[in-house]
Structure formats: C-alpha cells, structure tokens
C-alpha cells in the first residue's frame, strides 16, 4: 500500500525533506511500524527512532504510535508543538 509521510520543523531540517510517498511492504500497518521501516534505511532516517518525544498524526488528527496505517493515509512525524 502507498502512504504519504510528512516531516515538520527540526525533523524536516534534519531529514532534508518535507515529505515523501512510501510503498509499504505487507505487515507494516501501524505508525510505529512505519517509523521503524523508515528508520531502518540508516542515517539520517534513523533519527526517527531516536527522536525523544516524537509526535505523529494520521490524516490530520493527533495519533498514538499504535494507530493503524491504511492505504492512502497521510502520516506526519514532528517534534512537540510550540505555537502560541
């Protein structure tokens, strides 16, 4: 299945990209599994697995790492928010 993955703020800078389309192998069906799949590419992607307090959203809603990922989903990874 295909998912759109977005990165924001310091994570976007560290990865040198704001996002990508990823074709996921069978069995990668949660946010945690997606994070580990991307991190397994090595540097700089491995930072995804190291980032403390990494947050995520699925389809524009804050989500936990146990959230399901389905074909066509938009998944975002980012540091804790600091607006206001």
């Amino acid at each position, binding site marked *: 299945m295909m998912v759109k993955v977005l990165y*924001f703020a*310091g994570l976007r800078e560290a990865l040198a990209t704001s996002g990508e389309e990823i074709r996921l192998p069978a069995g990668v069906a949660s946010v945690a599994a997606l994070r580990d799949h991307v991190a397994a590419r090595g540097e700089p992607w491995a930072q995804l697995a190291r980032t403390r307090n990494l947050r995520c*959203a699925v389809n*524009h809603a804050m989500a936990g790492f146990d959230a399901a990922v389905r074909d066509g989903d938009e998944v*975002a990874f980012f*540091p804790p928010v*600091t*607006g*206001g």
Partner: protein
Amino acid sequence: MTVSVQEADFAVGAEIEALGAGTDNAGAVASFVGMVRGGEILAMTLEHYPGMTEKALAEIVAEARRRWALLGVRVIHRVGRLLPGERIVFVAVSSTHRHNAFAACEFIMDYLKTQAPFWKREDTASGGRWVDARESDDAALARWRGA
C-alpha cells in the same frame, strides 16, 4: 470565520469590535494577544501543518463552546517570519458574562500551545534553534482535564 492561520498582521481593535457586532447580548469580550519577546531573539519563524492546524484550532474552539456558553470566538495565528514586538496570536471570546469569556479565552490558549501543530524557530546572534516544548505548558493544559 472563526479561525485564521495567516502571514499577515491583524487589527486587534477591529477584531474585538467585530465580535460584539450584530448582538446586544454580549456582556463581555475577553481577548489575548501573544507577541514575539525581544531580548536575544532577533526574529522568530513559525511553521505549521496546513490543513491539520486549521482543523486542530477549530476542534479546540468547538471544545470551548461545549464547556462554556459563548457567543462569538475568533482565533488568529500568524506564520512565517516575525520580529520582536510583532503579534503572533490573537484569541477573543464574547459571552453574556465575563467569567465564561475569561475562562474560555485562557482554555483556548492553553490548548493551542500544546495541541495545535505550530513550531517556532528562533534566530539569535549565535544562530537559529527550534524552540523546545515547555513542561509548564503541559501543566497549564492539565488544569482543564477533568474540569
């Protein structure tokens, strides 16, 4: 329009007056303006998540409306590069009585700071740095949980 995410500045007076327009029931309007602190900060750049940020703000406003009897709500958050003294965020709430307006205004700000996807990057003389989330902001949010 209740929620705006924009690069442009806004007119505080006009926004407050607009909340009271068209009704004579509003006994109170409470507002908050957040600005860029000076000192060692030369400039601040705000990033957001287009689509999700607007949705998150609208959900925070909807939750405030569930908790208090409110007449009007206006939230404006700027993005892009801002200089010390410039306005970042505006929240205003109108209600029949001041207690609801004060409480809802503070609630919206506390939720915005911890739940809406915005990120601040500060430029200083020694370079740029992303602002870390503050535990005091989480503590401010916790006050409203279960309330």
